[in-house]
């Protein structure tokens, strides 16, 4: 029997509020089980307890009740963190370090050194597209770049599980698309992903399974496809159809037992439009950034 990547049983977290009688229940009696290789999305509105749950799983915050395990090892044990990489919400790193130094620091904390570490740093900087900015201090990084160095940092020791707290918060659509592709790449390589988000469209694109938290309680959970599929409906998307053909299909449908619910022109998404419109500028900006590095 293999251990689940993450097991949470009966987790409750109550934050006392100093000088007040009542206290905040951030998480209430939560059960989760995430299998190896899954991409699991923890969804919920602001303040629903997503970050708190992730922090408890990583042993950063102690639970009021219940237990959490990572690959069968209690979260309270330091060694449970060997196989996990974490990207906190709005991460800040040491501003005075360059991208490269940041990765070196975190690599050393994971016991890496020498050529192995050096290669790993190059590999990751390439992966997250920061090779050109490696010698720049993080103080000069944009939010998207910080998020990407955070992702690289989480991967430095080649973990089997990565925990990402709102990985695309504050990142532009092109950037969040890149992050999405990275996450799909983790999945292909068999890395388990646990992420939190309130951006539902994105979660829908990448998650195998989702759980929805509201006020610290898990209100829904299941495989994404099952949760959102409308069982008795089918969509057709047709290109270059003449109006006659469409009318014919429609009358064909009307003659059967089925019912046509909607007929409309396909639209592009705002996201795709945004990306098409900004890619040129984005490339120009990238080469600008390069220019800045060279000047320094």
């Amino acid at each position: 029997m293999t251990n689940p990547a993450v097991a949470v049983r009966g987790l409750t977290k109550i934050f006392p509020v100093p000088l007040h009688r009542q206290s905040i229940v951030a998480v209430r009696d939560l059960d989760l089980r995430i299998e190896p290789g899954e991409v699991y999305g923890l969804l919920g509105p602001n303040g629903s307890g997503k970050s708190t749950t992730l922090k408890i799983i990583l042993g950063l915050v102690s639970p009021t009740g219940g237990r959490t395990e990572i690959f069968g090892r209690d979260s309270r044990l330091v060694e449970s963190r060997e196989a996990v990489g974490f990207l906190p919400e709005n991460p800040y790193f040491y501003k005075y370090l360059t991208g490269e130094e940041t990765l070196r620091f975190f690599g050393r904390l994971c016991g890496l050194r020498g050529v192995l570490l050096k290669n790993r740093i190059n590999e990751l900087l390439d992966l997250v597209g920061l090779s050109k900015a490696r010698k720049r201090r993080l103080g000069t990084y944009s939010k998207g770049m910080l998020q990407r160095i955070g992702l690289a940092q989480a991967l430095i020791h080649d973990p089997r599980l990565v925990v990402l707290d709102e990985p695309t918060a504050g990142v532009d659509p092109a950037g969040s698309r890149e992050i999405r592709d990275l996450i799909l790449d983790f999945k292909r390589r068999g890395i388990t992903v646990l992420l939190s988000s309130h951006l539902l469209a994105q979660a829908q694109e990448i998650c195998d399974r989702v759980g929805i938290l509201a006020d610290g309680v898990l209100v829904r959970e299941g495989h994404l496809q099952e949760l959102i599929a409308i069982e008795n409906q089918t969509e057709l998307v047709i290109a270059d159809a003449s109006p006659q053909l469409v009318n014919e299909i429609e009358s064909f449908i009307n003659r059967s037992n089925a019912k046509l619910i909607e007929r409309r022109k396909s639209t592009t998404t705002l996201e795709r439009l945004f990306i098409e419109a900004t890619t040129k500028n984005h490339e120009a900006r990238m080469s600008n950034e390069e220019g800045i590095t060279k000047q320094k």
Partner: protein
Amino acid sequence: MQIEMTDRHYRAFSFARINAITFNTLTELTRLRVFYVLLVFALFLIGSSIFMAQFSFQQEFQILKDISLGAMSIFTSLLAIVATARLLPQDIEDRTVYTILAKPVPRFEYILGKIAGVLLLLAISTLVMGAAFLLILYAREQAAVHATVTHMSGAPREQVADAMRAIRSSAFNVDIFPGIIIIYLKACLLAALTLFVSTFASTNIFTIVVMAFIYFIGHLQATAREYWLHEHSSGVITRIFLAVVALLFPDLQAFNLVDDIVAGTAISMALFAKTAVLGTFYTTIYTLLAAFVFYGKEL
């Protein structure tokens, strides 16, 4: 690569991890402007003592030693408090502590790395200031020798040799070294105590104010204790009370050997050893207390 990495075994204690945190802390501190301001100021004080003394060379050396060792003592103490006070709160506020502790890093290693970084910084500044001080002392000694030789050009050789010996003994005495080490240990103690206070303080200002308070009480403590013992009988409760006070407010006056050095009094080996052990003991205790509080801290 995959295999190599998953093959590594977790070790409960790792110098490599502590080293990484130590040198990162050192980098952080040396990029603080306040460090250079304080250091330049201390060096300036040490240097300026040259111009303050235009009396006999004995007086000149005394003033030079008094000012320089005094400046070193104040600078290292100030640096220890100011630099340490913001280390943990900053990391917690910036959430960098999450990223660090989400790696397989035990909390006490994190604390150990932080304090070691500060102690390293203090050691470097003490060395820099000590070197500046000894250089100036040496330069002044040479100048005095030179002046005396010119002045006494007609005098008999015996007399010149006597004068030289007088200059040398009043300029340089071996006790300067233990004196500097004790100054360093006092700063280490203050750094560890500051770290401890900052584990439960809510703001940097609080930590610094508490430390300023402890600093002054610590200098008065010995006198107060004598007075107390004089007034009250030394029962068990009194002793426990005094022990607690001594733990919270270390007797900083015990680390003040500058006056002895300036006066040229020899620092006995026993006194040095006793003070050094006391300093190391306090530093260790405070670091352990800091680690203990931090271990149970809700981040």
